């Protein structure tokens, strides 16, 4: 009997770079050379162009999260207890985020995150990918000035993110990616491991039918895989430009495998045959019920034009795998 083909999904896993036109507009706004209305128009145009491209190439769409200044800002600016802190380096990159400062127990503001999702996603909720910070990474980047101990805070962040999932699921959204790179760049130890599991359990229980993806990048995923495999999520994503495929081991059959296969740290185009080969090698080492292809690290480390080239290559890889079939 032939095994069923493994479904191959693909999509953006991070904010997309702003186009040169949008960059000019946002710079001009800073310098008071343009109006907010014209910048809004530039955002709408850029979002619509990107979501059209995504619909053509991928199984999920994001509209690029172009308005988000960093992954944490919507939370830092809208959740109670938080404020926006100092400029801080984002992992091993030359990009920076404003550190969320937590002065008191965190409180969600209903509707606030939904209101900050890219507008084109509202009418495409069924295929949209909601991207939020993972609870562990959020815990690790914020400065905790509240009297809540970190382990308890991790649990609270999980509950609050679960509330976001519940609310957004009510609006039709069904795919939720939690970007949690610090799970691999500085894996949790001791009680924090249980805290991470508990946080993701809260998220999973918010809507058991939703697809939840934990997406990692920035370091070799191997040491964190035992923990990642225990998380009650639908998909575990690892970056093959940081993790050698030869180091992968089989994981639970229930888990889909996310693979970061284009590298935003170089404009060098990935070889189609090499990339397909690496995906096949990863799947041979770690057979999986579904594959989710994407950029490994955030694609907004590239300018828009080479980033588009990477998206095309990502789509090429998906189609090559679909053509040749993987089981």
């Amino acid at each position, binding site marked *: 009997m032939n095994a069923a083909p493994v479904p191959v999904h693909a999509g953006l896993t991070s904010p997309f*770079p702003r186009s040169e036109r949008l960059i000019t507009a946002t710079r001009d706004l800073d310098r008071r050379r343009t109006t907010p209305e014209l910048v809004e128009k530039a955002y709408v145009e850029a979002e619509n162009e990107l979501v059209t491209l995504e619909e053509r190439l991928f199984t999920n769409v994001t509209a690029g999260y172009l308005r988000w*200044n960093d992954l944490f800002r919507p939370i830092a600016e809208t959740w109670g207890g938080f404020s926006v802190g100092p*400029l*801080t380096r984002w992992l091993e990159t030359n990009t920076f985020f404003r550190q969320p*400062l937590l002065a008191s127990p965190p409180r969600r503001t209903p509707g606030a995150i939904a209101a900050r999702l890219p507008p084109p996603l509202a009418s495409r909720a069924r295929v949209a990918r909601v991207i939020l910070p993972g609870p562990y990474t959020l815990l690790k980047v914020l400065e905790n000035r509240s009297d809540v101990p970190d382990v308890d805070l991790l649990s609270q962040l999980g509950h609050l993110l679960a509330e976001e999932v519940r609310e957004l699921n009510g609006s039709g959204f069904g795919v939720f990616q939690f970007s949690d790179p610090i799970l691999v760049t500085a894996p949790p130890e001791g009680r924090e491991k249980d805290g991470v599991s508990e946080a993701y359990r809260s998220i999973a229980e918010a809507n058991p039918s939703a697809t939840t993806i934990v997406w990692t990048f920035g370091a070799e995923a191997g040491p964190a895989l035992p923990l990642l495999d225990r998380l009650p999520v639908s998909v575990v994503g690892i970056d*093959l430009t940081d993790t050698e495929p030869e180091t992968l081991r089989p994981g639970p059959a229930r888990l889909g495998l996310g693979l970061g296969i284009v590298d935003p740290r170089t*404009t060098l185009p990935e070889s189609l045959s090499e990339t397909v080969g690496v995906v096949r090698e990863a799947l041979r080492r770690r057979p999986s019920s579904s594959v989710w292809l994407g950029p490994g690290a955030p694609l907004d480390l590239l300018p828009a034009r*080479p980033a588009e080239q990477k998206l095309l290559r990502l789509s090429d890889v998906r189609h090559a795998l679909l053509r040749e079939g993987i089981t």
Partner: protein
Amino acid sequence: MSAPLFPCQEIGSLQKPSLEALGEWEDRLHFLARLGPVPEEVLRHPDVATLQNLRAAFAIAFLESAGLDRVYDGEARRVEMYEYAVRQMTGVEFQGHVRSWDSKYYRKGTVVNPVDLVAPYHLEEYDFVRDHARVAVKLPVTGPYTLADWSYNEYYLARQPGWKGRAQRRAAQRELVVDLASKVLRPTLRALIEHGCRVIQIDEPAAGTHPDEAPLVVEGFNEATRGLDAEFSMHICYSRYQDLLPALLEAKACRQWAWEFANRDSDGHDGYEVLKVLREYSDTRSIGLGVVDVHRDTLETPPLVAERIGRAAKYLGDPSKIWVNPDCGLRTRSLNVAYAKLEAMVQGARLARAQAEGRSA
């Protein structure tokens, strides 16, 4: 007699003023007098070279007027610290802008061929500053590691065999850093020294990006400065400095660390505590102490600056090792805010000096 405690310096860039702004600042700074007679018509419609001279003279006067002991020209002739340097070499093509944070971007190049120097750079700007400054001069130059880290490395990476994973990226990066240091930076630094430049700040803001590459930062620095005699410093910012130590201490010719601290010194968080680590390593180099945050308009007060200096002196165990500076270049602040921050910095240093010497300021 020993030198006064807590001399003040800048780190690099200032906002480039419009012609109109230059006119307004001329009333306060009288910088045109440094240029000799300039016809009114030329001032109204300057060509690019004249505008650059006007901006450089302005920046020198601006920094001197604020009370600094070491100045430069606010990088008036540079597009910015990366792009300007990359345009002086071959082997790199520009791709477009990437975001640094919020709506701040920089143009990023791709290394498509081996890098090489067209001609030593910063010479003209240095000559101008030397001829027009009334106090000591410190020249900032972007370091080889940062130039490499802020570029997309295609040429050297493509030479690595097979799938381009982490190990291949690292090997390619080392080749690029060493080429930049030996083929681009060292000839430039040598030429600057021959022009009389004695104090040179190597800017390595990318040094903290990959902490495990700190030895490569050092290799680039040592390769760039090998055989050269000048007072070199290394500027690093927005990094966990403790993660770069002790590797960084192997930067042989470096006489000063110029680091950012004020950005992280707020609301009960001690941004200067990391200085204790330098003391633990018995590092004897001086420190360029960042005491004003360059990314916020909120003005530091002189007492706050003085308190920060005093705290740092306590951690270092030797106040004479401290130079006082902003965290980083001030180009993201308006000129009015930048000037007010520098004034507060100088007044704060004065206050700290008086406190250290047991007298009132």
